């Protein structure tokens, strides 16, 4: 089974999104994944990456931070026709799958933007799993590819 991927570790800084974004673009180019799927992958990764920093690391006092790293991995299993995105961070426990979903039927006046990022991840991807392991958050996001 061929399994090729991109790996990166970046610090908790929103400016590092650019680096991950380029990894995804390069990966999709190598794997001949469509522009449409690439943009979806970039979207869900931006949402989760931003979430880790703004709801995770930035809420933690500097003394309590043991590490402010974010590990990122993207792989494609040709046999399963499936992309796996894997994020690990060391911020406080945060399970996106337990978050309340926004009411997307509200009017503009009633709408809040909160929760939309995680909602987009769930809607655009096929499956997500979350685990808290040894003081770290592990999120795996799966996307099936139709060739």
């Amino acid at each position, binding site marked *: 089974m061929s399994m090729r991927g991109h790996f990166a570790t970046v610090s908790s800084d*929103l400016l590092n*999104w*650019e680096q991950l974004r380029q990894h995804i673009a390069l990966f999709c180019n190598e794997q001949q994944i469509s522009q*449409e799927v690439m*943009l*979806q992958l*970039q*979207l869900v990764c*931006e*949402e989760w990456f*931003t979430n880790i920093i703004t709801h995770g690391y930035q809420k933690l006092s500097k003394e309590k931070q043991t590490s402010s790293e974010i590990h990122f991995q993207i792989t494609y299993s040709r046999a399963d026709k499936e992309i796996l995105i894997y994020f690990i961070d060391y911020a406080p426990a945060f399970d996106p799958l337990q978050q309340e979903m926004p009411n*997307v*039927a*509200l*009017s*503009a*006046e009633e*709408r809040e*933007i909160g929760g*939309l*990022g995680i*909602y*987009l991840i769930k*809607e*655009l991807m096929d499956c997500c799993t979350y685990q808290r392991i040894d003081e770290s958050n592990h999120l795996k996001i799966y996307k099936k590819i139709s060739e």
Partner: protein
Amino acid sequence: MLINVEQQNEISIISLSGRLDGASMGEVEQRFLELLGQGMKQFVFDMNELEYISSAGLRVMLLAVKKTRAIAGKIALCNLNANVQEVFQISGFSTIFEIFPEREEALQFFRA
């Protein structure tokens, strides 16, 4: 992100080009608030060259529609690509905004 603004009568046409994300949302917000500060009340966002939008981008769009309606103004969007359209649909923003396939149709909306 490239932002181009042209005036057609009382309508400000804001063309967005590139990526509307966490990195560029501030620029778009600032530009929009400037126009609002100049007394503009009618806005067309032309998304023809917009490749990508994330929830950070949606945040600016929500701000724009709320501020515009608060002053009894009007806002319309046009030329959304498939990806941008999809994000608007999933998030329920396609029911919040008046969305048109072409700029001309968006401009018609203001004449109605």
